[in-house]
């Protein structure tokens, strides 16, 4: 039985994934990658939730992470639908070029 992994590693792992997600969101030049970045941030939160739910008898964390996954899927589908339309009109997916709404 492998001894228990040091609990802080999980928190650090989820923090790492969270920061990676943020980096991807900001740096990537394609909207799809921004969505991937958001997914990463959500999964980092899931990791945390699942890990901490072991101390909570009611298993709320796991239940929440299921809902997070479901809602993330919904969000991505909506995002892709909108991106399709943008591609039809603007022929670009780079968020930096989408600058027609100025002050």
């Amino acid at each position, binding site marked *: 039985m492998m001894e228990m992994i040091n609990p802080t590693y999980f928190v650090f792992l989820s923090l790492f994934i969270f920061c990676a997600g*943020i980096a991807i*969101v*900001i740096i990537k030049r394609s909207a799809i990658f*921004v969505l991937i970045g958001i997914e990463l941030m959500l999964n980092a939160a899931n990791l945390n939730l699942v890990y901490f739910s072991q101390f909570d008898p009611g298993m709320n964390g796991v239940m929440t992470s299921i809902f997070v996954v479901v809602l993330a899927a919904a969000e991505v589908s909506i995002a892709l639908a909108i991106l399709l339309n943008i591609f039809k009109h603007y022929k670009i997916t780079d*968020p*930096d070029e*989408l*600058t*027609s*709404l*100025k*002050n």
Partner: protein
Amino acid sequence: MTLLKIIWPLIFIIPLFSGIIGGLNHRQSLKLSSFGMAFGLFLALILVWMLDEPLILEWKWLESVNFGFSIDRLNALLVLLVYLITLLVQVFSITYMEHDPDQDRYTAKLGFFAFSMIGLLMSNQLVTLFLFWELVGMSSYLLIGFWYQEAGRSRAARQAFMINRVADAFLLLGVIRVFNNGYATSFTETLASGIQWDGFTGICFIIGAFGKSAQFPFYGWLTKAMAGPTPVSALIHAATMVTAGVYLLVRISPALMDWNLQVIAIGGAVTAFMAAVAALTQFDIKKVLAYSTISQLGYMILGIGVGAYQASVFHLWTHAFFKAGLFLAAGSVIHYMHELDATKDPQDMRNMGGLQKILPVTFYAFLICGLALSGLPFLSGFLSKEGILTGSWLWGQSTGNYLVPILAFCTAGLTAFYIGRQILLVFFGEISFAKKMVEPLVTIRVPLIFLAASSLWFWNSINPIDPLGWFWNGYLFADLGATSDQHSILGVLIGSIVLTLSGLGVAYWLFRPEAETARGFKKSNEPVQLAGKISFHGWYIEKFYDQIVRLFSKVVFGAGWFDKKVIDRFVDGVGVSGVVIAKVIGWFDQNVVDGLVNFMASISQLIGRFVTSFQSPKIQIQIGWLLLTLLVLLLWFQFLT
């Protein structure tokens, strides 16, 4: 008594009423108003005749301020004088203004002036006096600027009013100080209560009086007032309005401190001398008479200063007649010169001469009144001047300040000289034109004859030499008890006669028709050497006003005091600086104060631009800003709490 109570308000209202009637119908406006004034004169005579003790009429104008009139012997007599001179002037101007289109406006303004002058003489409360004081100033503004077509005349009217306004500001200050310091606010009370005013209030009243009676610092406006029609100058700027200052000082003299009286004496003397010098080299016939009026007023003010106020009032009385006479005579000369040839300046003495035979009545009237002015014995001028000279001499002896009597005596001599010069230049010498004009009998001759006659001695006192012999003296100052030492001192008597004769002699010697100076005079222009220039420009008093205003505008550059004289379109370079100062305040007000609001508007635009710069269209930059702020918040909480 009840009759007087009815007559009194009537006397007050008639001039206004006759002015309005005259103003309404165009053709014989002057005739109608002179009938009204004649009736008023008659009532004034009755009033003077039947008045024994003063009548007072007072009512509440404001809470702490009353409005009041009173009539006693002194102002009853002066009211009579005003009525008389106004009537004569109106009769004279029937012909003088016959072909002037705006006769109705002229009559209305004259009526308004007479109304306000009589109101001034009758007022008892100080506020009432101030009210009519300003109304008189306004009517003189309207009359000086009667021929408003010529910009020069309307500008002269405005400047005259402004200088009066400055002096009236001090008078107003004096009136307010009287109210605030709890002194008596009416002449009758001041006389009865005998409260002494403090020095500064006295000075304010003196400056007010000096302004109105054209004394030293303020006499610049009287020469400007000559821009008005000559009958107007005769009435206002010789006999009635300018004496208001003298009347005021007589009324308040019991309340003044003795050093105030000294100020009055010295002020009067200095003015008399300066004006006499200024009258020596003038070309304009009316300017000479204007300066002589200033000089005679100086005499009256001097008389009050030295305590001989009875002589001053007497001099005021006689001066009104012979100065009005001189002005009307000058008026008929100008009228004649204008008829003769309209191109040349009708008032310039250089193109006059030898009018003796052409206008005989005018000549004799001018001669008699002129000699009365110069103080020749057996004429009214001598009597009243004698009284003042005696008073000044006695005052000089008692106070040891001999400057005042010396100036008085010199002025006497100079007066004789300049009036002699004028008579010789205008009426003697060869006749340079042939047209013979007969003065219309009634309207010109009668007033001249009356005024000339009244300048003779016997109308005023039996004994031609004794200054106190004045008929009215007893009437006026009986209750005050004429001071015994006023009787003439032999030395003063002889001195004044000698001075007058020598003045006339020198004038004759210089300006007799054969003398080369008389012939040279026709072509001479402005005097060159210093003394002549000082005299010609009237001691540069007008230039002095411009300097004060320009200096003041420099001193108050921030606020930008407005320089009226400089604004004149004719004064080029210098004029522009005044307009510049005015424009600068306009610009300052427009941009700096107004700019404050525009500045705030642009600041908010600037902040708006800065704030919305964060709102970049790119989504990733927006998210970047979001995360940055969250990071800042986290660091703030980690390390600073």
